[in-house]
């Protein structure tokens, strides 16, 4: 593999890639504008970002055919930064996000994705959908009445059109039709140009105008770390989905560094941080896009459209964008997960709901994922802790009892481990058979220690047999009960 990908990655599928890329570019316009509005920046920031990220990721990404651009998940994380500190800090944050992502990629941290369970992913996606929907509510409050019929009309077009034709992306048709109507009747609704500046030229290289000191870093880090994590999470999740869709593999570490490089470049060209887009990537693949060319086409064609059609884009009515975003939100939400609440194990549902709840409460997808991952870890430990059984038998003369331990002994099961022993029996010898047990951690070892000491203290001899290799190495290294010299060091005072 070369730095920018193999020949097949680029030119294996030229015709279909160019067509799919064009469709994606059209579908990207409304979303890029809408996500800029969510983040509280001019539409041109999102449009430049989408162009720049798509183009760079076409070369640097690890998953050919996946579309990356300005996204809602990332936009939601930067709202406060933009509000409190301004645009220059957003560019700096974008660059820093990229640097962290590159580091993640080189450190091979994409392996950590395995700890993000299905339930956390579902929770993530649902929370994202809820946040995107909530971000539309300000556009629906205190606006002229004509907004509501327009939003409804937009939704109707988006949902009904695909039943008749799939030649054009229905969100684009929605926008074109509603723009035409609002221009024709000179309707009293807000337009995209009301929301801020649109691009009139190619983006130019710039260096963020901020003080380059530790204080700035302190401001940026609380935003940058969630941005980096969420960007990678969504990108790697999307990559997995596209892998399944196309039945091909991808290089997750390369995708991580690729996302980082894309964000660094984007920051220097005046764009906002972005990541892979589930919806657009699926549109691309379904339209036949497979290679890197499709992603590049999407980015380049997006910029051409914007620069050429700049005036028209400015006339887009906001209700049309709101309709598109509501569609994005409904399409993102995993509706099946609600039906699954009744079928899935309670612990999985709790993980999913906790992820959603934390995200909606904090407006930070990273916190939700963290809570979800921790909860799934705890639940897993709890479940494995049940895989533990103690049986015992005693000789008729009441002198020797043999305990047979089987299963997993670790921090979550040490309590039941200790509770399984009857310390009130006055035994001469107790035999603890660990042949079928696994000792995993220090807690397990110290629990065994506790048991042994308790028996010994009553005058009962303890015989531990059948430690398997794994447990035996742990006990040899950590336990105190079998080290006679531990008591030799008792200095007087």
């Amino acid at each position: 593999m070369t730095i920018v990908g193999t020949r097949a990655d680029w030119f294996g599928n030229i015709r279909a890639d160019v067509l799919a890329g064009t469709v994606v570019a059209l579908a990207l316009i409304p979303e890029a504008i809408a996500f800029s509005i969510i983040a509280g920046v001019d539409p041109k920031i999102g449009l430049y970002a989408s162009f720049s990220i798509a183009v760079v990721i076409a070369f640097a990404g690890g998953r050919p055919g996946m579309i990356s651009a300005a996204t809602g998940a990332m936009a939601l994380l930067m709202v406060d930064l933009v509000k409190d500190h301004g645009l220059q800090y957003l560019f700096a944050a974008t660059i820093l996000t990229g640097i962290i992502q590159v580091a993640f990629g080189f450190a091979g941290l994409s392996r950590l994705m395995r700890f993000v369970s299905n339930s956390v992913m579902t929770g993530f996606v649902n929370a994202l959908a809820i946040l995107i929907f909530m971000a539309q509510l300000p556009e629906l409050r205190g606006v002229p009445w004509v907004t509501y019929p327009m939003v409804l009309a937009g939704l109707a077009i988006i949902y009904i059109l695909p039943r008749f034709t799939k030649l054009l992306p229905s969100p684009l048709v929605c926008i074109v039709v509603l723009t035409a109507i609002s221009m024709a009747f000179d309707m009293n609704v807000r337009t995209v140009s009301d929301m801020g500046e649109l691009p009139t030229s190619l983006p130019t290289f710039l260096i963020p105008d901020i003080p380059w000191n530790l204080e700035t870093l302190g401001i940026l880090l609380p935003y940058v770390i969630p941005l980096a994590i969420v960007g990678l999470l969504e990108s790697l999740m999307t990559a997995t989905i596209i892998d399944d869709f196309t039945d091909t593999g991808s290089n997750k570490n390369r995708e991580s560094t690729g996302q980082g490089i894309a964000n660094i470049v984007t920051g220097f060209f005046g764009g906002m941080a972005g990541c892979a887009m589930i919806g657009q990537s699926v549109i691309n693949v379904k339209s036949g896009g497979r290679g890197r060319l499709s992603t590049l086409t999407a980015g380049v064609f997006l910029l051409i459209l914007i620069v050429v059609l700049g005036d028209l884009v400015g006339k887009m009515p906001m209700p049309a964008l709101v309709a598109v975003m509501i569609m994005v939100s409904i399409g993102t939400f995993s509706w099946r997960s609600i039906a699954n609440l009744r079928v899935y194990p309670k612990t999985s549902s709790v993980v999913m709901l906790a992820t959603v709840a934390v995200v909606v409460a904090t407006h930070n997808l990273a916190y939700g994922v963290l809570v979800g991952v921790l909860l799934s870890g705890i639940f897993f430990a709890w479940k494995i802790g049940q895989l533990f059984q103690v049986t015992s038998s005693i000789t008729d003369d009441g002198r020797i009892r043999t305990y047979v331990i089987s299963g997993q002994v670790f921090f979550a099961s040490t309590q039941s481990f200790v509770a399984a022993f009857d310390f009130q029996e006055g035994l001469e010898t107790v035999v603890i058979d660990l042949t079928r047990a696994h000792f995993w951690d220090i807690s397990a070892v110290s629990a065994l220690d506790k048991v042994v000491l308790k028996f010994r203290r009553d005058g009962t001899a303890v015989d531990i047999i059948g430690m398997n290799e794994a447990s035996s190495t742990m006990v040899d290294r950590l336990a105190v009960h079998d080290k006679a010299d531990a008591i030799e060091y008792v200095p007087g005072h």
Partner: protein
Amino acid sequence: MRIVAYIDRSEYALSVCRHAAWAATKLQLPVALVHAIQHPASEEGRDLSGYFAIDAPETVLEDRVEHDEIRNRVILEDGHRLLDSAANTVRGEGVTDVSERLFQGTIADHLKQHQAETAMVIVGKRGEATARDPNRLGSTVEGVVRSAHFPVMVAAATFEPIERVVIAWDGGRNVAEAVGFISTSGLLSGIEATLLHVGERGDRSEPGAAVIHQLEASGVSVALDHRSGRVAETIVQSATDLSAQLIVMGAFSQSRIRHLVSGSTTREVLRVAACSVLVTH
């Protein structure tokens, strides 16, 4: 299910073993011999005040463990030897299924933990602590009789082959249970029993013909006797007159208030009787 016999180092141990063997033979159940011990509290070997050292808690603990281990090992070994000789006694009486258990804790604890598999309990009238005072009832015994949910046989100091039995009938639910237990288990088959009714002939607490039939059906030969007087005294006197080896009665059946005023009949019988007493619930 099994018969649980509690033994200790008092003079009652031998008697408890032989009562257990008798009951095991009658009921065809295994015997579990239990000796409850309590380790003396860990005494401080030396002054540890102001003791500072690296890892002090661990080393002191190790030290204590070592110390207790040596001392308690001897206590355990003694206990096992006591149980071994008790088991030999029971086996000598022809019972084959005998198990030994040394229990670290009180008899009451042991009872509580093993209720489910206990058919009957045998315990000496007095333990090591009260053996020397012939007028006192062992506190353990009273606790066992009070808390048990199964028949408790309180053994006299010596075992005599059981041939004559007084069944103290007060018309209460507990003594009816006792008759039920005797007739279903066959514990007293082939034995002469006097069904003693303390009170006037014809009063409400008099045993009916059904009770006598029930007992006779299980192989007990029954004679009915009416006596009047203070209940506990009359029961014990009757047992002495008939030279009975066993009194059967219901446990502490009186109301709480009467118990406070007059003391419990069962308790009184247990205290005064020279023979063994089987108390049921």
